[in-house]
């Protein structure tokens, strides 16, 4: 068996020698689509090995600032202070749109309808039981149990958290005052699970739990998720259409650095807890091979790559945003010139 391992190792080394490894780290939110993309791109360009590890948006930001990875990924845009720390200026490039959905484990409940006040109350700890009027009033067709709610949140730094608390900060002044927004916050109540995967797993296992995860994780684990009332007063479930509706307003006023929040948007059919997710790319990449691969990947991602998004539950980017991004990608300098 040792010989076998040695043989495999040699083969691997041989195959890998021609290839270039590009390392990235960050958000768990888009991990399914990123791993699909990097795999598909690798099939098209075998010498491009893009190794992405989902360690959380905060991790992506940290590691790209320290320079230990070649690119980062985050669901929450970097703050000005963070950007100031970067040795090489960083580009935020939106890749897909995603939605954060409330998943829950309540016996006998179908699709629950949540108001912004209900979600904020649950996570602030002011609403503690499932049959609280704040939840029951919007769910007349369901017999909610008189059971204590178990809120579940992320224990690691996360852009998914950022999107969720960004939304809560906009709809609940008390949340904005007490907790605020960040990739890691001081949660008033609840258990912590590691990664989108950890939260989905905890909710699935714990009766009367509620958590927030990216849509694709809810679909993968076949967990029920609720719809949320948007600013226009309609209860909207997360779907490609509702997420795209949320992005449409933003696309018109996209800032030059692409850092924009689209939670709690206007729009009749817009889903309230949606967001872009960004790749954090240095504007100057010294290594020729890595830079070339990244630029080629980004071009592919903005074109053919977008066709894979909807299959995994992510909304593709609006065309106007893609056009703006292509211009930004051209600004990336490769090689030491």
């Amino acid at each position, binding site marked *: 068996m040792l010989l076998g391992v040695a043989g495999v190792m040699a083969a691997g080394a041989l195959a890998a020698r021609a290839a270039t490894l590009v390392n990235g780290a960050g958000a768990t939110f888009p991990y399914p689509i990123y791993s699909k993309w990097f795999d598909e791109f690798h099939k098209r360009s075998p010498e491009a090995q893009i190794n992405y590890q989902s360690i959380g948006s905060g991790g992506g930001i*940290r590691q790209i600032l320290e320079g230990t990875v070649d690119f980062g990924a985050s669901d929450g845009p970097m703050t000005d202070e963070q950007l100031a720390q970067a040795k090489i200026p960083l580009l935020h490039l939106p890749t897909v749109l995603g939605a954060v959905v409330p998943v829950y484990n309540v016996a006998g409940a179908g699709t629950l309808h949540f108001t912004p006040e209900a979600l904020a109350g649950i996570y602030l700890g002011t609403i503690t039981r499932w049959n609280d009027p704040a939840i029951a009033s919007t769910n007349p067709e369901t017999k909610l149990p008189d059971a204590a709610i178990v809120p579940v949140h992320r224990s690691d730094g996360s852009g998914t958290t950022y999107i969720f608390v960004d939304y809560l900060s906009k709809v609940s002044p008390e949340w904005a005052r007490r907790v605020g927004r960040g990739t890691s916050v*001081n949660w008033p109540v609840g258990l912590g699970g590691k990664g989108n995967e950890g939260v989905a797993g905890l909710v699935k296992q714990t009766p009367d739990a509620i958590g927030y995860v990216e849509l694709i994780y809810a679909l993968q684990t076949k967990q029920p998720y609720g719809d949320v009332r948007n600013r226009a007063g309609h209860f909207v479930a997360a779907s490609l259409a509702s997420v795209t509706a949320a992005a449409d307003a933003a696309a018109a006023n996209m800032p030059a650095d692409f850092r924009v929040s689209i939670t709690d948007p206007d729009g009749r059919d817009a889903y309230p807890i949606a967001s872009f997710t960004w790749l954090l790319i240095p504007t100057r990449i010294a290594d020729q091979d890595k830079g070339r691969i990244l630029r080629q990947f980004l071009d592919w991602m903005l074109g053919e790559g977008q066709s894979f998004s909807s299959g995994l539950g992510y909304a593709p980017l609006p065309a106007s945003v893609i056009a703006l991004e292509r211009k930004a990608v051209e600004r990336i300098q490769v090689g030491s010139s």
Partner: protein
Amino acid sequence: MEQAGAALPPPGGRIRPALAFRPAPVPPLAARPLEPLLVRSGGRRWRIGDPVFRGLAAGFGLSVVGITLVIALVLFRKSAAARATFGWAFLWTSVWDPVFLRFGALPLVYGTLATSAIGLALAVPFGLGAAICLAELLPQRVADPLTFLIELLVAVPSVVYGLVGIFVLVPAMRALTTPIAATFGWIPLLAGPTYGVGMLTAGVILAVMIVPFIVAVSREVLLAVPQSQRDAALALGATRWETVRQVVLPYARSGIAGSVVLALARALGETMAVTMVIGNRPEIAASLFAPAYTMAAVLANEFTEATSNLYLSALIEVGLVLFGITLVVNALARLLIPPEVGRA
């Protein structure tokens, strides 16, 4: 090296004749210490061998000290920002707020110490009981392979414990603790809600992980108690249990205490298994069933993603506190275990 002369049979007949030069002449002054004499008389090429080798070995030995100092230094220096901002209050403040950058490690220290205490409380009776059984009750032939099997538990990787913990222990604990909390919930220690994950679950997993240490070391210590002590007690008419309780255990007391301290040291630093079953909530709660957080777990969860310098510094200060506790616990172990007893 040339082979030694075959004419002279080696003394005792057991040492391999690996030496290759003419023996030195008998030293004129027998009072001289042997070593420098050999260095001098062994011929030029051996003269520097001894100090060089000793220096080399000493160097490597001291490098261990150096490594430990480096770790302490890195932790100390990189936690400077947090230490300056929070001071000693870091140790008794109860907040963990990465947004507003307020950090106090009290819930973490509490969680670490509490889960370790629960782990010890569960592990010591079982471990000691098993050690007594293996040392006093069972014949050596049976006890040896059984001890070996128990020691294999040490080799199980932490992440495997965590895995089994998530899929087996957590649902089991939830099934077990929910009725207990329902009936006895008026006692703060046993109050609900019960999630399955929590301090007690972490304590149980730690107990399973440290029992082998206690069993292995305590068994050695018990075996080291002279048989004459036991015989004397038995001759006086004591039962086996009375012998153990009144004669053997007191004799072995400091060794057993040392093994407990060693197990504690391992429990304090345990990361992966704990973070998977503890609920990750930096809060001090009265109930055993409440979620908690330990220093090692917060490092595993938040270290790679701490984006602001103060946040990172606070995390490293947590590492420093953990290191400090390790120093103290190990010093205790050094004092309690007699140096002759083998340690796990």
